[in-house]
């Protein structure tokens, strides 16, 4: 239809041209995206009917009438550009894609392209260059702020996993992550590792340069055809394809550096050093006469005050290889605090893509090499990515296409997360001595490659708790490989002009190998472990597509399909037992005791689905969409394993309604209702016995801790959605507004139950979670002149989440299901009447709304450990994307905003208790050091009131050792500080992306030049946290991925600023 219009217009313009007189202007119209000429673009003299269309090489020539001053360039899907003629005879123009225009065609479920006017649901598109422009190795993370309602959380680890949730958490214990579908191939984004090290997830194995576009299908109505797994939304990725009768070689070369954003790392008090109590160990003569000895064994900084005139024996005095062996040194704060441990990271990305095609074929072949050096010592990731796709029109009716992609990832020294010795931040943020100089630890390790720790045991022979931080990176590192293969073969056959059939087989397979080690000489039992996992998913689709105009006014689109999905996962996890015999030899056979039987896992899942979809249109104005799917899953009890779910939507195009309103260019309203069913996790139906390692030759069996359920039925999500889209002044401004509500009912939950039942978890079918919210995406072009354009994209989403019910009735009604219990005595919960994931712990005791202190000046603690003290769900999220274009130069920046979302910090809870942070030292408001005894004028005056309601005037002892810190974990001996003291508001405003691009003028390259286009880019990512409320930490940081990974920080990694450049050549 569009094409016919275009042709008509061209003919019309061509005829108009014949009458034109005056000056001649010529030039070339090219596309900003790939530098290719645009054939068939329209060039019109503004205010006249004089115009021309570009030829196959994108060239045009036009005679300008005397009254002509401005040329208007336009092409479908591109932003219209106006250029003043002002005496020029050659005017070359680069056209950009236009969001509002592009949205006319949307890629929907099953990869079907639809006119956006037909859609009754919300779908938001992101162009490939929007995710590739910042050159991040994980494109998933770069979606943050670009799509309304998309909650992307990624930790600051090297190659770590990313959590992608659309429209809030809906499943209490199941997967809440969006499904990734690449060219029709479903790819899992689950994190697969049994260990505390974050090995990342497979969605990162996609080359961002190979992405043509990303379409985010948010609601159940949009995704119902994908069945069960798509209940959480779908991220549809369309990769780049070759173009017929063309040849293009693109080379991309970029380097990105990264360095720590110091505002997100710990700061240290510089007044007191090692110890839980303010004294040294008894004086000894370790070689330079009697002198005090530092409390090596105390992993805290509540020790004696620094005094440069005091000579003491430090940790290196007992290291025979140290120049300070047997010597004393002044008692001073470290010159190099742990921030100097973080190195400058480097990410080099080189890729080449060859694409093109002949009369009947197209292909695209790419290779990418990605070398990452992390910010921790001895951390690297190397990636090789090969992708190929091709299509062949075998006959006029038959198209054959295929794709094959292979990514190999090799990691060394991936980061440990959470409360774990493999995470250096456990030391840096929780258990540290401020007198320890990181550079000295470094030289101690490199001097003799031994574990010369600051945390010696009593005999000064090895570590008690903490290893030398360089030893742990260079000796106790992990290494891993992942092979990721995905691809498809597909046949399309046009049966008639209104019906086609498609058959497709897809495969996605990953093979993971992860090795971890703890070297002989480390704190803890040395070990070597290896984990191997194979995952394979294949899908077979058969689909009939219909497209028929029933009458002049009635159109019909439909499809009828069947899908077979088969998944298979097998893994084995083995470890040495009781230590390693030969140091630095890492094999299972190098075990002290015979190894225990490895843990084997084997899961399968088969789901068969049939589905149908019909879309009826009336006068291209009113559209009705109906779809239905029936699934049969092997994870449900046999015989009761099939479930049906429908969806319906209505869409009305308002263009006619606004015919007489000149400033409204287009509009539509839409509404839909959809249900999606979901099956159970594998192996949750029948009871089995758990097999512990035998007692010598005596076998042991045990009942497992989870009680399975043979009466499981599918869970179900029901959702409503309504939306309004309006476009003003020919796309100068427009928005898409959506309201939605979804309720997930009959959830399949492994709920925690009291161990008094004999189990600690039990699978039930109950519970309801509601999400409702609004999403707005808008675009506005505040300035558009001949050479300069300012475009803005705005995204806003607000989701309200509530757990409506859990399980049980009447007296046995359960109102809380803990999702995770964490160190520090806080838990993350699903609680009836509250948002999903609320944080519970001991609160303050309030008197007249104020925090109450006891008779010793310490905060009183409410004895109820199940008080809700925080909610990790953000109030709203938004993104502001700005693009300034001036000729070939463009500057884009993205501001990413999150309002609200609480975070509990174990780092501060422990760190304040061990005296690391500045708040634990310094002067009190009497002007005395707060660490002096209260009797000597010291102590801390905590803001609050006494039990009688009067203002607090009791100074609390600020010392440790007797468990009397005023803050943090050891306070008040018995119950600690109220946990709510360590709840932080996770709001932030971040300058997420900054990209300066320059396209060299095409005039630089001659007609026959091999190089067609050169783009230069300076890129920055996470350069500036404009605003946050959480000290010393990045509020985005969590515990890797999973439902309970947000809202809790332990050993948080600091944020990294990324900056670098990129060069792109097109041949």
């Amino acid at each position: 239809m569009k094409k016919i219009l275009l042709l008509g217009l061209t003919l019309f313009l061509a005829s108009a041209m014949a009458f034109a007189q005056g000056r001649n202007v010529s030039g070339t119209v090219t596309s900003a995206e790939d530098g290719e000429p645009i054939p068939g673009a329209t060039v019109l003299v503004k205010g006249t009917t004089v115009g021309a269309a570009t030829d196959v090489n994108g060239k045009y020539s036009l005679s300008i009438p005397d009254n002509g001053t401005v040329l208007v360039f336009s092409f479908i899907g591109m932003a219209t550009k106006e250029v003043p003629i002002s005496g020029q005879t050659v005017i070359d123009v680069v056209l950009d894609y236009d969001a509002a225009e592009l949205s006319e065609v949307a890629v929907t479920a099953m990869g079907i392209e639809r006119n956006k006017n037909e859609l009754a649901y919300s779908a938001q598109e992101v162009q490939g260059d929007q995710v590739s422009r910042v050159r991040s190795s994980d494109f998933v993370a770069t979606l943050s702020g670009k799509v309304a309602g998309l909650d992307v959380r990624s930790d600051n680890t090297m190659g770590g996993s990313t959590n992608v949730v659309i429209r809030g958490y809906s499943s209490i214990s199941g997967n809440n992550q969006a499904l990734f579908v690449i060219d029709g191939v479903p790819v899992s984004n689950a994190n697969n590792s049994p260990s505390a090290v974050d090995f990342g997830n497979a969605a990162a194995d996609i080359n961002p340069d190979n992405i043509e576009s990303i379409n985010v299908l948010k609601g159940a109505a949009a995704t119902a055809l994908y069945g069960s797994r798509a209940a959480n939304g779908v991220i549809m990725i369309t990769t780049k394809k070759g173009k017929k009768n063309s040849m293009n070689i693109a080379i991309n070369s970029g380097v990105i550096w990264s360095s720590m954003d110091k505002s997100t790392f710990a700061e240290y008090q510089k007044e007191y050093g090692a110890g839980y109590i303010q004294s040294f160990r008894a004086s000894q003569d370790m070689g330079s006469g009697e002198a005090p000895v530092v409390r090596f064994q105390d992993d805290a900084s509540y020790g004696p005050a620094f005094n440069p005139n005091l000579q003491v024996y430090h940790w290196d005095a007992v290291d025979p290889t140290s120049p300070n062996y047997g010597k004393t040194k002044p008692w001073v704060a470290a010159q190099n605090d742990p921030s100097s441990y973080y190195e400058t990271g480097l990410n080099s990305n080189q890729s080449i893509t060859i694409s093109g095609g002949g009369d009947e074929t197209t292909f695209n072949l790419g290779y990418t090499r990605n070398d990452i050096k992390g910010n921790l010592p001895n951390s690297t990731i190397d990636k090789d990515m090969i992708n190929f796709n091709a299509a062949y029109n075998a006959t006029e009716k038959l198209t054959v296409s295929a794709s094959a992609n292979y990514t190999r990832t090799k990691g060394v020294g991936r980061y440990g997360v959470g409360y774990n010795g493999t995470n250096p931040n456990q030391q840096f943020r929780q258990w540290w001595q401020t007198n320890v100089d990181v550079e000295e630890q470094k030289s101690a390790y490199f001097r003799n490659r031994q574990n010369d720790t600051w945390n010696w045991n009593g005999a000064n022979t090895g570590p008690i708790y903490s290893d030398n931080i360089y030893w742990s990176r260079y000796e106790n590192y992990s290494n891993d490989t992942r092979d990721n293969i995905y691809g498809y073969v597909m046949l399309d056959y046009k049966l008639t002009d209104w019906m086609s059939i498609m058959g497709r087989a897809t495969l996605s397979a990953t093979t993971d190998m992860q090795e971890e080690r703890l070297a002989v000489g480390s704190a803890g039992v040395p070990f070597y472990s290896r984990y191997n996992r194979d995952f394979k998913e294949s899908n077979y689709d058969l689909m009939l597509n219909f497209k028929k105009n029933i009458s002049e006014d009635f159109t019909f689109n439909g499809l009828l399909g069947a899908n077979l999905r088969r998944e298979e996962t097998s893994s084995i996890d083995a470890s040495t037992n009781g230590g390693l015999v030969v140091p630095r030899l890492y094999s299972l056979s190098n075990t002290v005791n015979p190894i225990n039987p490895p843990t084997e896992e084997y899961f399968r899942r088969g789901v068969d689905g049939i589905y149908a979809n019909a879309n009826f249109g009336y006068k291209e104005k009113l559209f009705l969409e109906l779809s239905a799917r029936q699934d049969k899953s092997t994870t449900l009890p046999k015989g009761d394993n099939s479930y049906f779910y429908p969806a319906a939507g209505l869409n009305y195009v308002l263009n006619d309604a606004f015919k007489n309103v000149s400033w409204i260019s287009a509009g539509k309203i839409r509404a839909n209702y959809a249900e999606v069913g979901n099956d159970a996790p594998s192996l949750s139906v029948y009871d089995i016995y758990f097999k512990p390692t035998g007692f010598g030759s005596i076998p042991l069996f045990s009942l497992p801790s989870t009680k399975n359920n043979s009466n499981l039925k599918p869970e179900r999500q029901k959702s409503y959605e309504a939306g309004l889209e309006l476009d003003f002044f020919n796309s100068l401004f427009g928005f898409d507004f959506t309201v939605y509500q979804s309720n997930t009912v009959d959830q399949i939950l492994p709920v925690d139950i009291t161990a008094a039942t004999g189990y600690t978890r039990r699978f039930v079918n109950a519970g309801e979670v509601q999400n409702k919210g609004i999403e707005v995406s808008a675009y506005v072009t505040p300035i558009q002149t001949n050479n300069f354009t300012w475009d803005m994209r705005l995204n806003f989403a607000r989701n309200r989440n509530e757990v409506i019910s859990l399980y049980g009735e009447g007296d046995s009604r359960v109102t809380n299901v803990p999702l995770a219990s964490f160190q520090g005595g806080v838990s993350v919960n699903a609680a009836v009447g509250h948002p999903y994931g609320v944080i519970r712990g001991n609160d303050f005791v309030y008197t007249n709304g104020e925090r109450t202190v006891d008779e010793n000046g310490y905060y009183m603690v409410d004895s109820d450990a199940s008080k809700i003290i925080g909610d990790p769900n953000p109030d709203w999220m938004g993104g502001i994307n700005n693009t300034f274009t001036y000729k070939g130069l463009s500057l884009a920046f993205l501001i990413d905003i999150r309002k609200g979302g609480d975070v509990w910090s174990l780092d501060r809870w422990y760190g304040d208790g061990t005296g690391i942070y500045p708040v634990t030292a310094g002067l009190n408001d009497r002007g005395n050091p707060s660490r002096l005894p209260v009797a000597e004028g010291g102590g801390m005056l905590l803001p609050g009131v006494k039990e009688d309601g009067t203002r607090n005037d009791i100074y609390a002892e600020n010392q440790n050792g007797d468990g009397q810190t005023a803050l943090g974990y050891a306070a008040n001996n018995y119950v600690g500080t109220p946990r709510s003291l360590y709840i932080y508001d996770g709001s932030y405003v971040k300058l997420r992306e900054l990209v300066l691009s320059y396209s060299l003028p095409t005039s630089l390259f001659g007609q026959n030049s091999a190089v067609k286009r050169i783009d230069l880019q300076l890129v920055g990512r996470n350069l500036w946290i404009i605003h946050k409320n959480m000290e010393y930490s990045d509020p985005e940081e969590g515990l890797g991925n999973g439902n309970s990974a947000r809202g809790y920080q332990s050993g948080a990694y600091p944020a990294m600023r990324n900056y670098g450049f990129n060069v792109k050549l097109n041949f």
Partner: protein
Amino acid sequence: MKKIILSLFCSSLMLATSCVDSLDDYNLSQKEAAAVPSETLFTNAVKGLTDALTSASVNSNNYRFYVQHWTATTYLDEPRYNMTSRTIPQAMWQSLYRDVLSDLKESKRLAMENTATIESVKNNQLAQIEIMEVYAWSVLLNTFGDVPYSEALDPENSLPVYDDAQTTYNAILGRLNNALTLINPTAEGYEDGDLLYEGDMEKWVKFGNSLKLKLAMVIADADAAQARTLVEAAAPNVFTSNADNTVFRYLGAQPNNNPVSNSVTGPYSTREDYVAANTLVDVMNDLKDPRRGQFFTQVGGEYKGGIYGFTNSYPDFSTVSAKVAAPDNPGLLLDYSEVKFLLAEALERGFAVGGTAQEHYNEAIKASITYWGGTDAEATAYLAQPSVAYATAAGDWKEKIGTQKWIALYNRGYDAWVEWRRLDAPTLLPPVEGLVVPLRMIYPVNEATLNGANKAAASSAIGGDSSDTALWWDVE
């Protein structure tokens, strides 16, 4: 053509929809057993119970602190009786219900179903299970007070009521009597899977009676009449030497090692969290106790305990001996020394169990010294001291027996804690004013969210869910 393709399409759809049903049942695990011998669950439960009581992990078992046998070097939360920051009650609760009682119940079900076993053997197996169940229930009751019993161990009932502790206690005493009548000493029971007595049912009779003696004495202050009946009935059949001890012989390799070795310096840990507490070491130094070398290490040629509940520098104080730290150090569930102390006490309470209190007292101490590796001569010399001799040692019988039993129950924190609460001796003071040495363990924090109404009812029934609420039998 069109029709052919359409019909092909439809038939492939049909094929597809029948496909899942034609697969083998994917819900059947390929790697886990669906049927196992009952003995394997019994063995696992016995190991689970012994591990829970023997462990020295601060996450689950801190009784060695409560009785001031040990203290901590650096982290004072637990010696200062904090039970919440590490969810200690939850760990104990889970071990006993989920890892011990649940497996015992299942092994009983499987044993009953097994028609191939002859009646006498089956009865013996059921008695073995029942005795271990009674043991495990007694630990729960003596730790928490009221706990779920009548509605417990039923996964279909997620909200079991808490039963009155005394009623439950009487119920398990009844079950213990029944178990003892089931035993046929000449027949077999569980054998290879019986890690305690290798199927020697005569030993099980002694174990059952010794347990009866011990459990009956616990209620002596609250229900003297019943205690007398049970003690007098059990006394003739209790342990007669250390050879009868209920010993769990740990192996050297993880995970079958003595769990203490996971927490103290040795092959399985580099941590230096514990030193001996001055409370115990000072008493043993005063008494020149020959067991010190078996219990502790020396510092500068002497035994020196760290100050209880305060920061202690690890190298400056005695810590656990190599024997206690050894991965294959046996665990003890009940021993001869303990039984002898109970008999001494029975006589002081006027129960007819034969002998004199002094004889039993002497034998108890001697049994302890020799069990730990000391000689008869050492025992005799020790007993000869006026501060030890029953006639001359300080205090009333409770203090004499209490103090010596407190020493003899070294490294058996839970039992030492029960006896200390019961005998109110020796005097143990909290490290700082305002703290109270726990008289019970508080209910797991997560019970408030998992079984809140029942937990709340139990809390008020026992007089408050606090660690200073005395249990029903702790009346003096």
